Each structure stands twice: as C-alpha cells, then as structure tokens.
C-alpha cells in the first residue's frame, strides 16, 4: 500500500482546517439571532440561540443517555444464538 494515493483527508492539518471552518459557520449562524428577527409560533423560539442550544443539548443528552443504556441493554453478539 506504499504507492497508494495520499488523500486530502489523510493530512491531519486539513482536518483541522475543516473543523475551523465548521466552528466559524456555527458562530455565524448563532450570530444571525442578533440581526434577524424570526417570526415565531411559540414563545420558546424567541429565546436567544434557541435552536442552536437545543440541538447541541439534545444531541449531547442523546449520546450520554444511549451510552448509559448500553449498561442495561448490551449483550454478546451471539446472545440469541444459544437457544
């Protein structure tokens, strides 16, 4: 595999670059809450950064709870095979 083509993503620096772009885009999206007034259907939506914060918290909670669920739910791969 020595002569395999080196891919752009193989370089750690490129991944860093990509992540920085991503962080800036998150910040920019959050900043639109200062300038843009949403037409809303529900009062919660008026909170600053509601959607961003909700998305971040929701996913973190999702992953942490799922991780805890593993303790109760996870079995060997052949768990059902010994019947």
């Amino acid at each position: 595999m020595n002569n395999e083509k080196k891919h752009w993503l193989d370089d750690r620096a490129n991944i860093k670059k990509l992540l920085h772009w991503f962080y800036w885009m998150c910040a920019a999206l959050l900043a639109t809450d200062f300038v843009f007034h949403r037409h809303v259907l529900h009062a919660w939506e008026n909170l600053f950064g509601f959607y961003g914060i909700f998305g971040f918290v929701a996913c973190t909670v999702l992953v942490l709870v799922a991780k805890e669920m593993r303790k109760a739910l996870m079995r060997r791969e052949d768990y059902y095979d010994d019947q």
Partner: protein
Amino acid sequence: MMISSLPPFAIFYIGAVILALAPRGARPWIMLLIPVAGLGNMATLDDGLHLSFALFDFQATLLRVDKLSMLFGWLFHIAALFGAVFALHEKDLSQQVSATVYAGSALGAVFVEDLISLFVFWELLAVSSVFLIWARRTAKAYAAGLRYLIYQILSGVILMAGVLLYLYTTGQNSFSQLSLDNTASALIFLAFGVKCAFPFLHTWLTDAYPEATPTGTVFLSAFTTKVAVYSLARAFPGTEMLVYIGAAMTCFPIFYAVIENDLRRVLAYSMINQIGFMVCGIGIGTELALNGAVSHAFNDVIFKGLLMMTMGAVLFRTGKINGSDLGGLYKSMPKTTTFCIIGAASISAFPLFSGFVSKSMVMAAAVEEGYAWIWLMLLFASAGVFHHAGIKIPFFAFFAHDSGIRVREAPINMLIAMGIAAGLCLYIGIYPWTLYSLLPYPVAYLPFDTTHVLTQLQLLFFSALAFTWLKLTGIYPPELISTNIDADWLYRKLGPTLVKNVRVLYLRAIAPMRHAVNEGGSMIAQLTQRWYGENSGLGGVQTVGATIAIALLFFAIILVWDLLAA
C-alpha cells in the same frame, strides 16, 4: 390519451409470471421493464372508482384513483424502478419474482377501495416479502424471516378479524375513514399498527430487515411500512392517539440507533423514527399535517432507499456491515460515499434536500395545533436523526479510522440506481412544487422562508458540533460488536427461557409420580411373571395328559353346574 383502468398490480403480477418463465439473461431487464410499463399505465388512469364486482354479499372495487392513492402509486413505481436497477446484477430467480410480486401487492393495497381486497393484498405483501429475507440463505436470516412472517401474518389475522366484524356490524365493505369507537375499527387499527411498527410491535422490522440480502432490504424498506402509513392516512386521520404514538416512535429508536453497530440496523431504527413523523402528522389531522405526513412518506422511501442502497453496496463489496469493521471506504468507493452523503443530508432535512420540505410541514402543524411538548419531542428527534443517520452512517462507513479495506467501487447498475434516488432527493429538495402538486390538499406552505431555513441550519450545525465535541473528547461511545436487547427479548429470550424452565419444573414435579408408576409397573410385572410365567402352574409347559385332565375337569364342573341349575 387513451384512458385505461388496468389496476397497477396486474402489470406486476403478469410481469412476475413472465419473469419466472423467461430465460435467465432476460430476467433483470424484464424486471426493469415492469415498473416502466407500470408508470405508463399510471399516466392513463382516470379519477374515480373502477373494476367493481360483486363479492359474496358485498361489492369489491379494485381500483380507486384519487390524489392519495395516486401519490403512493407513483412512489411505489419509482421505488420498484430504482430497486430493479439496483438488482440488475442479481441472478437469483426467487428474489426477482418475490420482489416483483411484493411491489405489485403494495400497489394492489393502496388502490383497492374495499376492506376484503385490502386484506388479500395485506397477506400477499407478507408472504411475498419474506423470500427477500430468506434469500440471504443464512441460518440467522432464516430465523429472522420466520419471526417476520409470524408478525406479518398476525397483522393479517387481526385485520381479518376486524374486517369480518366490521362487515357483520355495519354491512359495509368500503375502505374509508373509520372512527376508533368500536371493536372492529380498533382491530383494524391494531393490524395497521403492527405493519406500521408501533412501539413494542416494531421488532420485526429491526430484527429482519438487516438480515435480508443487499438488494432485498432496498425493496423491503420501501413498501410494507408505507402501505401501513397509507392505510392509517386513509382510515384514521385526526385520531389523537396517533399523535402520541408517532411522537414516541420518533424518539425511542434514536437511542438504539446511537449504540447499534450493524449499520443497516441503524437505518432500520431510523426508519421507525421517520415513520413516527408521518404517524404524528396523520394524528394531528389538519390539511397541513396530512400533506406533511404523506409527502414525508414519499421522501422517506427515496432517501431511505438511497441510504439502504449505499449500505447494500458496502455489504456487497466488503462483505461487512458493522461500524466496528468499516471505515475509510471513501478512498475506494468515492461515488457511493457522495450518494450516501446526499441521502444523509436528505434524511436530516438539510435545506435544499428532500426531507426538509416535508418534515417541516408536520413540525409546523404540531405547533399550530398547540402540541408544544410534542413539537419539542419532534425537534429532539430531528436533532437525533441527524446525529445517527446523517452523521453516524457516512462517518463510520466511509470515514472514521481507516479500516484498511480496499475494494472496487460499487457496480455500475448500483451506482445508477443510487444516482436516480439521489437526483430525486435533490430535485424534490430544490423544487418541491412538483411533489406538492401531487399532495391530497392544496399547499399554502412556503418551505424556504428565512426563519425555516435559518432555524433548521442552526439546529443541524449545533447537533454536528455536539458530535464533534463528543468525538474529540472521547466521550462518544465506540462502535462495539454486540447485540442490544429490545422488545424482541420478550419472545427471543424470556419466552424460550420460561418454556425451558417450566419444562424442567414440570419434569421435576412429576418425577415422584413417574417413580411410583415405574415401581408399580415393575411389581405387576413380577407378579405376572410369578403367576403366569413359564415356571408358574398356569403358564408353564404342561404334558398332553395333564392338559386333557384339566380340560375334562372343567368340563365336569360345567356339567355338574348345569345339572344343579336345571
């Protein structure tokens, strides 16, 4: 244009017969031709009821053409078409025939106008589809297929009971809106619920779909559950219970999806999550909600089909499907990777991708109708779906750590099929008005206003930010080779264990009795031996003289007895 009233299923059933008789080399092309011919027929269908005939004391109608049935009709033809292209390399006759009959049965079910015919196609759906699971030809697939079949037949039996009761009590055979206030309707509702994968009734889906063949799963994911969604939309719009069932369906599977290793099983869980949005929309029941529900069904078949195809291609090329075994495949399968990302963006409802234009209608309807907590649950599920289907699927299959697997790109027919589905995802996402014109109610909804686009982007980007943070800090749970227990534990573990234990207990309880019977038995045997055995007086060997003497003795006794009695 000539107006036809050929029911769409007929083309598929006739096609299946031709397919079975055709030479091997021609079969894949015939399979492709069937949905093309079907699309041509669809274009000539005339609104209204056709093909009615008397069935026992009732009226059966095989063809009801209206907006709702036509929407699913177009959809199932499209799914059958990209499925056939994806399976063009397939030489297995049983899969080709069963997939064609299966697609035809789905079309039959959405076009019939009466309950008896619905039941017939409901059962045909079950029986034809199971061969797509068994065609994998592994012991695991065989067992999962059997469990799948039991569930599907169960749904059919409940439907039959409900329909018979309904016919008996109302004298009506028409399949139209029902209210949930009588036993007959409740049974029909439950039968739909099994096929729709309601919570606790969902395990046939997550159990069996990932065990089917790479091409089989593409067909399976398109039809069964969407026929159920259609049936709910037809019979139970505005049934409030569906709002809560749907919301539960959007939320619980995403936890499983995060910790599941088999990537096709992740997609199966995410399928329940997407059906949840549809069920919720049907439950809300306003025009906006129903439009949202059925258009989301339309989009889901296409983007879920696309994702199943990309994972099918990965399985086909690498022979592996567990997240823990894969990674870095973007190097050898770059086109499949691109298609997967398009599917992932669509299911995550990124603006300009198909999921966005339909799911947002259900969400908007939930807020409008005052279901604030339900709306929050749907929002949570939206963030979650991006997390497990939008990021996890492409990330662990094609990126993550390089597994070192080097394979060829997917075969050209698979790439074309994925291309068709990806093209549709983009087309509907960018220009939703074609889809909107097919919906049952006029659409006043504007998907691309600034609020919708910005809020959705914020939600998705910050969900991705959470993934990035959890991954970089190592909190994100690794992909582990494992089985996660779900409701199927009840009948795959608890049930068999109980039966086994009951048997042991039973044997233990009857042991003394058995002992007594054995003892008693051997005692009787000994006594018999003693009295009638070869050494006993009666059973032993006698001389001829002794035998005659005994006979004469008995004769004398009888004679005397007779004389005395006279």
